[in-house]
């Protein structure tokens, strides 16, 4: 069922979503293996508090991790939203255009070739971009239609998947590093890994928002969009490249949390309706909220031990997604 909503309703809902993100970010800065009071968090972030244990935990553990969650969640969800719009496919996600397979292969190769210092983040980012660029270049030669992009993505992912299996077969030691990457998580993430990704994610998000009107016209269908003067093929390639940069930068420090890119846009479309700028913004906020919330749970559920966030995401997100689908099937909206 369609869920068109008025602008004022959407703005109210986006405001609530923003509040949720801020609240979760605040909790993420306070809780983990060790609970820190909000006052101590504030002092630590303002540079006060010197080098006491709480201030160091906040500055070097909780703050990078919270920033990482917000960035990775927002980027992956926004990437999924762009891909779903461009391919007009509500089941599309970054993995569909070769992000996961490209990043996975490069990380596996990096672990196999440089076991002492595998350069995982850089390898993941370059692999994701290479995977998507290969998909797009092949698709472009065959007309860059929605279907050729999806089919090419499936073929390239299959080849890269075989490559990962081959690397792990010949160099079994690479399996450990690759498994950590595949499950995904933000354990031990530092600002040194988050900041380079932020330099990619923030300008790319801005570029995607700037192309919101073009995306709206693209949603009218290829023929109508072209007849309105839109360069459909070029726009499709540009948008998919932006989506690849977002997802590549996110997986470079958070691993394969592909589920965020599928589930969040799917839910947010019902909240934001068919206008792309609202949809992208809602997806970015929703992704940030989901990943920050799941990461918080991963840290506190079995504290002082923690779960990989990818596991929490799948255990919580999967059933929630199924519940939404069942409600939809029952004719109810949410």
């Amino acid at each position: 069922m369609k869920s068109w909503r008025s602008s004022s309703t959407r703005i109210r809902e986006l405001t609530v979503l923003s509040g949720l993100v801020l609240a979760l970010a605040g909790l993420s800065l306070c809780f983990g293996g060790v609970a820190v009071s909000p006052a101590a968090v504030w002092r630590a972030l303002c540079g006060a508090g010197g080098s006491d244990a709480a201030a160091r935990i906040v500055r070097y553990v909780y703050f990078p991790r919270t920033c990482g969650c917000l960035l990775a969640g927002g980027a992956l969800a926004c990437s999924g939203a762009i891909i779903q719009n461009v391919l007009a496919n509500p089941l599309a996600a970054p993995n569909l255009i070769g992000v996961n397979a490209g990043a996975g292969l490069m990380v596996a190769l990096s672990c196999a070739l440089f076991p002492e210092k595998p350069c995982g983040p850089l390898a993941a980012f370059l692999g994701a971009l290479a995977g998507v660029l290969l998909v797009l270049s092949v698709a472009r030669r065959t007309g860059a239609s929605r279907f050729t992009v999806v089919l090419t993505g499936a073929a390239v992912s299959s080849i890269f998947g075989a490559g990962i299996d081959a690397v792990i077969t010949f160099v079994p030691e690479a399996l450990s590093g690759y498994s950590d990457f595949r499950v995904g998580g933000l354990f031990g993430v530092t600002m040194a890994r988050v900041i380079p990704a932020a330099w990619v994610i923030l300008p790319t998000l801005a570029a995607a928002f700037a192309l919101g009107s073009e995306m709206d016209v693209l949603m009218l269908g290829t023929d109508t969009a072209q007849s309105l003067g839109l360069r459909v093929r070029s726009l499709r390639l540009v948008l998919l490249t932006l989506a690849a940069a977002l997802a590549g930068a996110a997986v470079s420090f958070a691993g394969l949390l592909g589920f965020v890119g599928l589930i969040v846009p799917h839910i947010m479309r019902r909240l934001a309706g068919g206008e792309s700028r609202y949809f992208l913004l809602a997806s970015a906020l929703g992704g940030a909220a989901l990943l920050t919330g799941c990461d918080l749970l991963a840290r506190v559920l079995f504290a002082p031990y923690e779960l990989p966030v990818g596991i929490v995401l799948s255990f919580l997100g999967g059933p929630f997604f199924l519940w939404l689908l069942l409600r939809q099937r029952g004719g109810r909206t949410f």
Partner: protein
Amino acid sequence: MIQLESLRAGYPARSVLEDVTLTFGPGELTVLAGPNGCGKSTFLRTILGLQPRLGGGIWLDGQALERLTPRQRARRISYLAQSRNVPDINARRMVLHGRFPYLDYPRRYRPEDQLAVRRALEQVDALELAERPMAELSGGQRQRIYFAMVLAQDTQNVLLDEPTAYLDVSCQLEVMALARRMADEGRTVVLVLHDLCLALRAADRLVVFAEGRLQADGPPEKLCADGVLERVFGVTVRRVQTASGWRYYYA
């Protein structure tokens, strides 16, 4: 005005239409007719530049098509596609998309765009539908909104691909009245229709394609009298005079 010279349209491996030379003038409502698969939609898409032509020339208002940028083309010719998506937006937003060719970055709608949209909605008698979601409109109401989008695009030339498909009889007549009004305002209107009776009744001029070629071009009465339609469609066409003009039927 749309001028075509020895146009060859189709796909690289298979030509669909050969050697079509035609001129569509302002104020004229032309209906393209022909059996399924004869290339009517391909013909429209080729004129728009949505599909590369295999040969010949196309001129829009005297300008060669290939010399126009996509945006310049969109300011000269508008198109109602055969299959249309129903986005999750309201009717006013849908009609606003017709102003896209006139917007520069950052694509903010100007007062004149809002005015053009209001005028277009008034012309199709759909002002009261403006705030309704597209998904909640009936087929006929939705078609009026698509027409309003075409009107908001404000082009001299208008191409419509089966605008009456899936509509009930009263909606079909309503759609044809809108097309007639566009032509009466001085636009060049070319549309594809499958309903032969409706085509004969509404068109100023009928263009018939079959077997990859232009078979006939002229006023409906003449083509009917010449027996072209019987030959192409394999049906018998008859007409009766009524108070409001000729009515056609076939068997």
